[in-house]
C-alpha cells in the first residue's frame, strides 16, 4: 500500500510528462515573445526622442574701403563674422516632431534669436506638413543660409542673396516628394506673414503665398520658385542718412511701399558629381512703387581635390525700374520743403567676382579663405552703403575673408 502510494506520484508524473513538455514549449515561446517585446521597448527607449545639434562660425573679414559689401568695412571685427546656433529636435510621435533653433550672432551681442520654431507632421512617407516660424524658401540655400559648414563658399553670393532683406516667416507649408526611379520631384506650397527690422529697412509681408518645384536626379538639380505678397517697406537707413546730414525727411517719404504687390521669381540649376560642383541662380524681385525692382544672377564653379575645394563665383545685380525714380525724397529745410536726396539713390548695379578655397580639416570643421572684388556701380549706389559710394570716388571694393565653420 505504502509502495503504491509511492508509485502513484511517479506514475502520475510519467503520465503528465508529455503535457508538461508541451507547457514548457509554450512557456519558452511565450518567454521568447516577452523577451522580444522587452528588447523592442529597450530599443525604442534608445531611440533618442530628443536630439541636439549645433553649428558655429567665426572668422575675420576686412574690406579695402567702407562701401559695406555684406556689411564688411575696413574696420570689421571678428564678432561680425561669428555665430553660434543650437537646435533641438523633439520627436512628438513617430510621425511628428517639434524643431527649435536658436541663433546667437556676434554682431548682435550674441542675443539668442529664434530662427526656426515649428511643428512638422508626416501623414505619409511622401508628404510633410509644417507650421510655425520657418525660412522663406526664396533660394536654393535659403534653408541653410547661416550653416556655413553646409556650403562651399565663405558666404552665399551676395548679388542674389542680399537684396531680399527678410529671411523668415510665420506660417505653414506642405512639401510633397514624388520619387521616380533614380530621381525625385519635390513640390512645396507655403503661406504666411513676416515683419522684420533690418539695418536698412523695416519690411512687412502680408498674405505671402508661394510655390517651389525642385527636381533632382542627385547629380543635377533644377529648382523654380514663384511667390507673391503685400509688401510694406520703411527705409530707415535712408531716413538716418538724411538726418545725419541735418535733413528731416517729410513724413512718409521713407515709406517705399505701403501694402504694395510684390513678386519674387527664381530659377536655380545645380550640378554635383562629387568632384565638380556647379551652381547658378537667377532671381527677380519686383515691388510696386519706388522700391527698386532687381534682377540678379550668379554662377559658381567648385572642384574638390580631397580636402581642398577651390571655387570661383561671378555675380551680378541690376535694378530694372530706374526710370521710376526720377524725383527726389523731400525734406523739411530752413525755407520750407525741399528736395533732399534723389530717388536714384535706390538704383542698384554691381558685379562681384569671388575666388576662394574651402579646406575640410576634419569632418565637422572647415576653414575658408575668400577674396571678393566688387565693381560696376555705373553711378548707382550698387546696393551698398550709398553714403560712402556716392560721396567717394572709389568705384570698387575688395573684401578679404577668413572663416571657420563647424557643425556638431
Amino acid at each position: 500500500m505504502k509502495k503504491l502510494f509511492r508509485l502513484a506520484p511517479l506514475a502520475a508524473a510519467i503520465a503528465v510528462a508529455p503535457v508538461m513538455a508541451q507547457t514548457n514549449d509554450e512557456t519558452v515561446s511565450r518567454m521568447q515573445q516577452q523577451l522580444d517585446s522587452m528588447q523592442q521597448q529597450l530599443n525604442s527607449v534608445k531611440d533618442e526622442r530628443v536630439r541636439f545639434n549645433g553649428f558655429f562660425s567665426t572668422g575675420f573679414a576686412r574690406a579695402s574701403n567702407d562701401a559695406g559689401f555684406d556689411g564688411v568695412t575696413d574696420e570689421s571685427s571678428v564678432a561680425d563674422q561669428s555665430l553660434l546656433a543650437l537646435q533641438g529636435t523633439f520627436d512628438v510621435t513617430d510621425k511628428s516632431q517639434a524643431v527649435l533653433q536658436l541663433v546667437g550672432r556676434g554682431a548682435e551681442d550674441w542675443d539668442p534669436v529664434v530662427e526656426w520654431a515649428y511643428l512638422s507632421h508626416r501623414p505619409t512617407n511622401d508628404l510633410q506638413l509644417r507650421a510655425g516660424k520657418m525660412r522663406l524658401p526664396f533660394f536654393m540655400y535659403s534653408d541653410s543660409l547661416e550653416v556655413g559648414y553646409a556650403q562651399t563658399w565663405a558666404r552665399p553670393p551676395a548679388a542674389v542673396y542680399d537684396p531680399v532683406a527678410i529671411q523668415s516667416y510665420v506660417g505653414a507649408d506642405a512639401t510633397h516628394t514624388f520619387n521616380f526611379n533614380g530621381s525625385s520631384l519635390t513640390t512645396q506650397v507655403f503661406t504666411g506673414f513676416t515683419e522684420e527690422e533690418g539695418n536698412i529697412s523695416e519690411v512687412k509681408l502680408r498674405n505671402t503665398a508661394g510655390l517651389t518645384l525642385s527636381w533632382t536626379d542627385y547629380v543635377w538639380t533644377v529648382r523654380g520658385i514663384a511667390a507673391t505678397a503685400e509688401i510694406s517697406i520703411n527705409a530707415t537707413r535712408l531716413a538716418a542718412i538724411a538726418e545725419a546730414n541735418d535733413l528731416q525727411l517729410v513724413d512718409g517719404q521713407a515709406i517705399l511701399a505701403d501694402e504694395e504687390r510684390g513678386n519674387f521669381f527664381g530659377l536655380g540649376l545645380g550640378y554635383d558629381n562629387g568632384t565638380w560642383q556647379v551652381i547658378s541662380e537667377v532671381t527677380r524681385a519686383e515691388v510696386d512703387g519706388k522700391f527698386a525692382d532687381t534682377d540678379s544672377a550668379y554662377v559658381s564653379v567648385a572642384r574638390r581635390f580631397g580636402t581642398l575645394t577651390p571655387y570661383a563665383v561671378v555675380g551680378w545685380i541690376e535694378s530694372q525700374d530706374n526710370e521710376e525714380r526720377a524725383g527726389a525724397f523731400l525734406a523739411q529745410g530752413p525755407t520750407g520743403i525741399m528736395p533732399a536726396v534723389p530717388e536714384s539713390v535706390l538704383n542698384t548695379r554691381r558685379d562681384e567676382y569671388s575666388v576662394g578655397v574651402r579646406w575640410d580639416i576634419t569632418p565637422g570643421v572647415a576653414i575658408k579663405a575668400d577674396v571678393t572684388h566688387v565693381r560696376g556701380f555705373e553711378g548707382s549706389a550698387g546696393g551698398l552703403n550709398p553714403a560712402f559710394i556716392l560721396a567717394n570716388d572709389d568705384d570698387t571694393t575688395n573684401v578679404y575673408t577668413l572663416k571657420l565653420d563647424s557643425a556638431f
Partner: protein
Amino acid sequence: MKKYSLILLASMLVSPLALAEVVVIGHPGGPDSITSNQVRDIYLNRSQQLPDGQKVRPFELPEGAPARSEFHEKVTGRNDAQLKSFWSQQVFTGRGQPPQEQGNTGAMKASVASTPGSIGYLDASEVDDSVKVILTP
C-alpha cells in the same frame, strides 16, 4: 594549363581574405533583398521606407571603420567630410537626422538583429544568422 588552374585555385583561396567584402544586412523579419539605389536613398535621407513598405531604421558604423568607408564608396559615393556636410544641411533645415551610429561591428549586428525594419552593413566575414544579407553591393 595546369599552371592556370593552379593560379585559379590560389586566387580562390586568397580572395576571401583579400577581398573582404561589405554586405548590407537587414532584420530577419524584413525584406529578402534590396537594390543598391534603394539603400543609397535610405542612407541619403531620400527614402524612409523599406521595399516592403516598413519604416526603415538605418544604422551606421563610426567614422574610420573600414566597412563604413567601403560601404559609402560603393553605395552613396560620398566620403566622411561630404557626408558630414550633407547631414548638417539636412539636420539644420529640419529634414532629418543621420542614421544612428553603432559603436562597433558587434553593436551593429546586435542592433540590426533586434530592431524590426532596420538595415546596416558589415564585413561579410562578420555576418551570422542573427541577421540576413539583403545586398552585396
